[in-house]
């Protein structure tokens, strides 16, 4: 399906939070307190409220001036730095993001094009998939172009970045805490390249209507829904792949509840360690792939991983990823042997 050629990961330093809402940035997101803004603001956050006290939690947190766009540009720049002439073969930039950038009039994929990939003909931010948009961006990267649409540029730069700002909800007690994070990978339809760090062999992507109100449903109900949704995606992929259970390792989003353990038990699979002690937002799936590649490199043998991600908004995905042991570690990620 897809070959991955490079990966870069970024987590800003952790900081302590005592509000369920994202960081307070003056003059940012104030539109959400207008009448029309109520439809795009969490309904549990009253007009003018920029903090809701909760027990303290620590998550990677971007600096006040550090935009999600900055984080995306950082990882894409670092990833491309070691790729030599490969940039000229990039035909698309696909960026996954759940949150809004603090400079809402700007465009992340255009910034990435401007900073790193000036001739790329196609680009978009892929959204409305909660924090589970990354597999869809990869799925689109595997879609062939229209005639005359750039068959000579088979690579896609796929990135993900989120920064949580008030009045959006960053911390769901008993369920998860979202971190600010970014990641990028270079992907191409399978077969065109001799070297890769990993191969995405199959994926199942699903969106379901929520059977409850996201903002008020008990954490247990949300966990159970996500569990069943991810389990279904994972089973579909595994059935198609006809993989032996013993050879496949499970890895996915880190949540405050033992969802990973539940899934591993249900699927009869061993787990890889979580990539972080918190949910890495839209970048989560790429962090999981990075951890799986690390495990393959440490064992010096191919490792097949079932990588799952899910959003509280009703999206889930499972990807079958074959990780290569000869991937070369960079300071902040992985690149293919050249």
């Amino acid at each position, binding site marked *: 399906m897809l070959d991955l050629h490079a990966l870069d990961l970024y987590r800003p330093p952790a900081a302590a939070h005592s509000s369920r809402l994202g960081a307070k940035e003056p003059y940012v997101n104030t*539109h*959400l307190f*207008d*009448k*029309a*803004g109520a*439809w*795009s*603001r*969490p*309904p549990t956050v009253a007009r003018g409220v920029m903090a809701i006290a909760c027990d303290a939690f620590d998550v990677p947190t971007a600096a006040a001036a550090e935009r999600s766009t900055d984080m995306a540009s950082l990882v894409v720049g670092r990833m491309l730095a070691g790729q030599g002439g490969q940039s000229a073969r990039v035909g698309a930039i696909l*960026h996954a993001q*759940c*949150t*809004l950038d603090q*400079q*809402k*009039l*700007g*465009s*992340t*994929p*255009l*910034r990435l*094009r*401007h900073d790193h990939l*000036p001739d790329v*003909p*196609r*680009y*978009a*931010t*892929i*959204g*409305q*998939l*909660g*924090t589970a*948009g990354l597999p*869809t961006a990869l*799925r*689109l990267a595997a*879609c*062939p*172009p*229209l*005639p005359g649409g750039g068959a000579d540029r088979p690579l896609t730069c796929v990135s993900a970045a989120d920064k949580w700002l008030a009045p*959006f909800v960053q911390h769901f007690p008993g369920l998860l805490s979202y971190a600010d994070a970014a990641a990028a990978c270079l992907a191409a339809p399978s077969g065109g390249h001799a070297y890769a760090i990993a191969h995405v062999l199959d994926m199942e*992507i699903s*969106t*379901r*209507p*929520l059977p409850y109100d*996201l*903002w008020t449903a008990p954490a247990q109900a949300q966990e159970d829904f996500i569990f069943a949704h991810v389990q279904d995606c994972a089973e579909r992929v595994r059935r198609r792949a006809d993989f032996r259970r013993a050879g496949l390792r499970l890895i996915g989003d880190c949540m405050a509840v033992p969802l990973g353990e539940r899934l591993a038990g249900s699927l009869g699979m061993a787990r890889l360690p979580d990539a972080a002690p918190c949910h890495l937002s839209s970048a989560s799936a790429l962090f999981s792939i990075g951890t799986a590649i690390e495990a393959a490199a440490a064992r010096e043998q191919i490792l097949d991983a079932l990588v799952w991600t899910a*959003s*509280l*908004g*009703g*999206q889930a995905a499972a990807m079958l990823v074959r990780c290569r042991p000869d991937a070369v570690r960079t300071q902040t990620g992985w690149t293919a042997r050249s």
Partner: protein
Amino acid sequence: MREMFTIADFGIVEAGIHLPGAPRDIAEYAQAEGVDAARVEALLAGRVRWFHMDEDQSDADMIFAAIENLCARVGNRKFLAQVTYLIYVHSQAFSMAAPPESLFSALLGRYDTLRPSLSFSVEHAACASIVMAMEWAARLLHQDGATDALALVVTSDRVFGNAQWRIRQDGGVQSDGASALLVGTRGLRCCFGGVTVSTYDRLHDGPASPANEAAIARTTWLHTRQTLREHSKLTGMDAAHAAAILPINADYLFWLKIAEALHIPLEKFYFDGITQRGHACSADLAVNLIDHGLALVDADGWILFCAQSNLGVIAALTLMPPGCRTGRHATAPGMQEDCAECSICTR
């Protein structure tokens, strides 16, 4: 997957729109909001007059209404079960559910036969995103290969805040609005003739600073002119020969300059949308198709939609009567030989 295909295999089956509330008069609105009189004069000189706003409707509400309009125009709602790809487009950044909530979950909750295999939004190219979404729909349908598969492209744009945000330019008023465009391979009202997306990414930060705002105002019409030139070269179809050019519903004075520079007769441009509807961003394509474009295609004309943005992205989309097999509905010498099937090439 099809072995042989052209972009003209794909096109728009039908369109639906929802412009909420009764039309509002910009002069009355501006007076009530205390907008500078000179700015109002500039708007009126730019043929801006009517627009729509309703702060009591969510993006989901507006899209539901646009889909209902689409169902009414199709004559049934059975097609919803054939929708394999669901694509959401919006220009206004805040026109979305609060993350991590998703508009798609709401849509799937509303329509129990709507079960696409892939859903995603196309964002961050402002009003040009709708053309990109059309291209994504064609690419996915091509890869899918099932001739009865459909893509449903929905849009919603709502303006937040006061007149400062609704009147972002001298040449237009931002209207609230939604649309639903059904893309497929069968039963087409029009087929795609070519897509051009031009990018001037120096403007990636949008109108976030006075310098950028000035650069956008200075360069957008020039970029649009260049895009239309490139699009004509790509398609072999001279814009001057189109039955109509459907611009986004703003920037009348820019279009005058473009018409003059490209020697396109002014009467080819459809400007009533600027006056009657306002600039409903991503919905302008469907609005102008329903109000004007589809009737021209029904009468064997081909039309050109052109979308600008305040981010340096300009997009052009040619729409033709269904049947042109080459996707080159050519007016350039020799090009007609590429297609002997469609009604215009064989004329």
